[in-house]
């Protein structure tokens, strides 16, 4: 009986192995074309949904952009270029736009793509706006609201007319995917947000989502009916990594072609990597300290709700704090030198709209102390800064765990404020929890806005409105994380939105940026950089968007995917006439050696390190083993001693 226990265990084990071996492949063998040319894109951000109305993440935007066209797409410098519509005109009175939908366009399932689809997609948003509601997560339809679109109509298959109250051409920046009516026609704006967008999806974009393995990858296949330029890649696979390190390793090993969000140190190391190019794109956003002003308008502080001290309501106090923060050091040490020193609430990447403050604060701790003293915040005997009620100021600084730059910046701020005699208790949260902490009672009875400073970040749209909205009074209870309310600002917001000319708008925007800066509602720490790296030995034709300071992928629209060419195809793509008919197989043949060349090169590159590691590993084992051998040596003698 005893030996049989062993046998049973072994049999159990092999049965287990067999069962699991059967279990896995069943889900992983889709029938596909042999040897497709695959563009592999790595990101550390997981995909949350393929439903465009539901996704909250950049990877989700990338996924739906590839599958669905926007009515008007974004060009190399974010200018309007043909998308689902190939041309558009504005009526003389400026109150309507006529879009021409491309003739003969098809969905990836072969069905004709017409203005009915455009009217359906925009119509969902128009209906939602009319009801004062949102679609799904509520991120897409506001672009249509901003553009003042009140109605859409489609007199024929090739024409869509949008009626608008907006004098600007913001209607060309509407970020709404055109989804096929023949698939989703039964949905309303109330239901489409919960509709199951299950791959494979039918789209009109260059690549359509074909397979999604949650937290692993999402695979897109070429849309053979795509109306625009066909990219060289037959498939695009966006792969999700748990950490930047594994992602960068995969890039070096040639397992992926593009890595989004590398760390600064990694980017520096990748610069010397053969066949890898690095990009530093300006982010359309910032990281900030948001000071909690909840209750400032009422003038009373409720315990447990809002900030811990009235000092945070005082612009002079916040202004003084601004002098204690060395932004240059933050950019150097937290961002590794990539990124820009933060000032106003319109990022410099939106070139035309951004202004630098008229009264800039410089890093000067002594100045900060003087200003605090002058504003009535004195030090007590123990060196603690007191608020006007005579209580030591102790601030709670809350930040999310989504990027390690937040944790680092928080450590700097804690030290710097500490030099002013202000104690900072910093605490890290997951973003969902932090989002709830920041919400005030206006958002519901469970919410308390119980924080003092929130360290987080925002990123915006091609139009600055998205970032300006956060400071409106009506944002309290949703996106406001400063609980700031100033009717003057709201008025300026409305007037810039209705400004007839770009120059007029710019003047108002400059005032708004200075207002927020002078009142120190936010202390914008830095404008982040988007750090990306890509391999050049597999695909060529990488192009940044915007050309000057953007990145190739995860931008607005998906133009850059279609510009990629096969780097392993030796002859240039167009002048094929010179070569004999036998030329077409050649690229295939030449692909193999150069691809292997690509994977062996990085191995050599890190070779020195590897030897180092092996040596260290061996050394550690030897030392530890040595200790143990000494330890164990006398064990045999021990029983004798005891008896």
């Amino acid at each position, binding site marked *: 009986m005893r030996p049989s*226990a062993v046998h049973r265990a072994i049999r159990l084990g092999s049965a287990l*192995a067999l069962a699991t071996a059967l279990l896995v492949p069943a889900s992983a063998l889709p029938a596909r074309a042999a040897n497709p040319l695959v563009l592999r894109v790595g990101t550390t951000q997981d995909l949350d949904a393929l439903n465009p109305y539901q996704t909250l993440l950049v990877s989700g935007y990338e996924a739906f952009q590839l599958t669905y066209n926007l009515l008007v797409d974004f060009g190399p410098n974010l200018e309007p270029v043909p998308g689902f519509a190939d041309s558009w005109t504005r009526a003389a009175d400026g109150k309507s736009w006529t879009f021409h939908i491309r003739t003969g366009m098809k969905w990836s399932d072969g069905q004709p793509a017409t203005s009915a689809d455009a009217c359906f997609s925009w119509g969902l948003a128009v209906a939602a706006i009319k009801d004062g509601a949102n679609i799904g997560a509520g991120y897409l339809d506001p672009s249509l609201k901003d553009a003042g679109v009140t109605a859409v109509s489609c007199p024929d298959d090739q024409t869509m007319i949008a009626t608008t109250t907006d004098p600007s051409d913001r209607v060309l920046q509407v970020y709404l995917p055109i989804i096929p009516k023949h698939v989703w026609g039964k949905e309303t704006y109330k239901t489409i947000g919960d509709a199951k967008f299950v791959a494979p999806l039918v789209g009109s974009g260059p690549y359509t989502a074909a397979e999604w393995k949650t937290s692993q990858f999402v695979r897109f296949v070429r849309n053979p009916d795509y109306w625009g330029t066909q990219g060289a890649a037959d498939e695009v696979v966006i792969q999700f990594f748990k950490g930047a390190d594994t992602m960068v390793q995969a890039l070096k090993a040639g397992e992926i072609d593009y890595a989004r969000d590398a760390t600064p140190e990694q980017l520096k190391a990748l610069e010397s990597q053969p066949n890898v190019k690095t990009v530093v794109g300006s982010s359309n956003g910032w990281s900030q300290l948001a000071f909690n002003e909840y209750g400032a308008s009422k003038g009373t502080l409720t315990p447990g709700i809002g900030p811990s001290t009235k000092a945070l309501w005082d612009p002079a106090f916040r202004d003084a704090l601004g002098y204690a923060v060395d932004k240059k050091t933050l950019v150097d040490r937290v961002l590794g030198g990539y990124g820009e020193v933060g000032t106003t609430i319109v990022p410099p990447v939106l070139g035309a709209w951004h202004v630098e403050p008229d009264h800039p604060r410089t890093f000067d701790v002594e100045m900060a102390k003087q200003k605090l003293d002058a504003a009535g915040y004195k030090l007590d005997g123990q060196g603690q800064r007191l608020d006007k009620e005579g209580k030591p100021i102790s601030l709670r600084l809350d930040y999310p765990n989504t990027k390690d730059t937040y944790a680092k910046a928080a450590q700097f701020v804690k030290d710097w404020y500490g030099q002013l005699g202000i104690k900072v208790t910093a605490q890290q949260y997951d973003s969902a929890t932090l989002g709830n902490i920041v919400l005030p009672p206006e958002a519901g009875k469970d919410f308390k806005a119980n924080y003092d400073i929130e360290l987080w970040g925002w990123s915006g749209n091609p139009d600055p409105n998205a970032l300006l909205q956060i400071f409106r009074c009506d944002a309290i*209870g*949703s996106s406001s994380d400063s609980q700031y309310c100033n009717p003057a600002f709201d008025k300026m917001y409305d007037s810039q939105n209705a400004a007839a000319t770009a120059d007029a708008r710019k003047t108002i925007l400059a005032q708004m940026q200075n207002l927020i800066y002078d009142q120190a509602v936010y202390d914008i720490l830095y404008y982040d950089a988007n750090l990306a790296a890509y391999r050049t030995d597999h695909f060529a034709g990488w192009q940044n968007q915007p050309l000057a300071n953007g990145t190739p992928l995860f931008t607005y629209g998906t133009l850059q995917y279609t510009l990629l060419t096969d780097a392993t195809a030796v002859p240039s793509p167009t002048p094929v006439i010179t070569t004999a008919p036998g030329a077409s197989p050649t690229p295939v043949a030449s692909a193999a050696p150069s691809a292997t060349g690509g994977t062996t090169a990085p191995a050599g590159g890190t070779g020195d390190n590897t030897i180092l590691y092996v040596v260290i590993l061996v050394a550690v084992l030897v030392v530890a083993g040595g200790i143990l051998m000494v330890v164990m040596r006398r064990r045999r003698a021990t029983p004798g001693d005891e008896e």
Partner: protein
Amino acid sequence: MNARYLARQSAQAIFTILMIVLLNFLLFRMMPGSPDRVNPRNPNVTVEQRDAARARWGLDKPLIPDQLVAFVGSTLQGDLGYSIKFQGQPVTEVIGDRFGPTILLIGLAELIAIILGLALGAYTGWRRGGRADRIGNGLSLILYSMPYFVIGMPLIIIFAAGLGWFPTSGMLTAGASYAGPVEFLTDLVSHLALPLATISLGLIGGYSILMRSSITETRAEDYIATARAKGLTDGRILRSHAFPNALLPAVTLIAINLGYVVGGAITAEIVFNWPGLGTLTVDALDSRDYPVLQGIFLLLGVSVVLANFVADIVYGYLDPRVRQ
């Protein structure tokens, strides 16, 4: 095996599982951070919309009894609700997708670790005090002291990033298509090698230490002396007498251990980006995906209860004294 013993063990197991279901409900309702699908930082969402979303997810009803009754009822029917993060996919599907890879990885790692660990432990225990024991036991103790990620990170650096022998992460090349089962298996095995080595190494230490002490105990038993007196060779005695007997306590402990190991390998899965339950747990936690977390919690809890149950039964079967 008597029926009363079996009945008692079963009753205890069922009771514990019910407790887990209850705790499962309470614990996750206590977690801060609302599991709303609506992002609180969305500039465009109104209070009414957020309330509507909560209502849709049944979060507006009182905790007890409404939510509790609904929860227990559906759990018993095998309905674990819908994932919040992944577009309302059923939790059972989300977990099911990740169950296979974890079982594959952990199952194989356990198998390797059990075989190697028991062999190493038996050998070192049998040669107690000798050089083999010193090295073998020292190695076991070191491995036993190493968290999985401490083992895994150097492996990636040396064998994946450095030598390029294995891929750095994942279970299969993302989005790959395979000409046949051979290509598929090759891809799987090359991805499997490093995480498998990591977890196996992490487990070997514990098993070896266990077996070593078990075998030294056995070595002192009378029947070993008898066998020796019969003139059997040392190796023969180890294989046919000492090892099988020393195995019994080990087997029981292994059975219990199997229940815990799924949860324990989380860091190994994270380091290698293995698409299993470990990475799912951390993902679900990051996105406050309560239903998925509850499902995992239930699964792991129940698997430990079942492992314990099996161990008790086996133990009772082997050692009649326990039964009364």
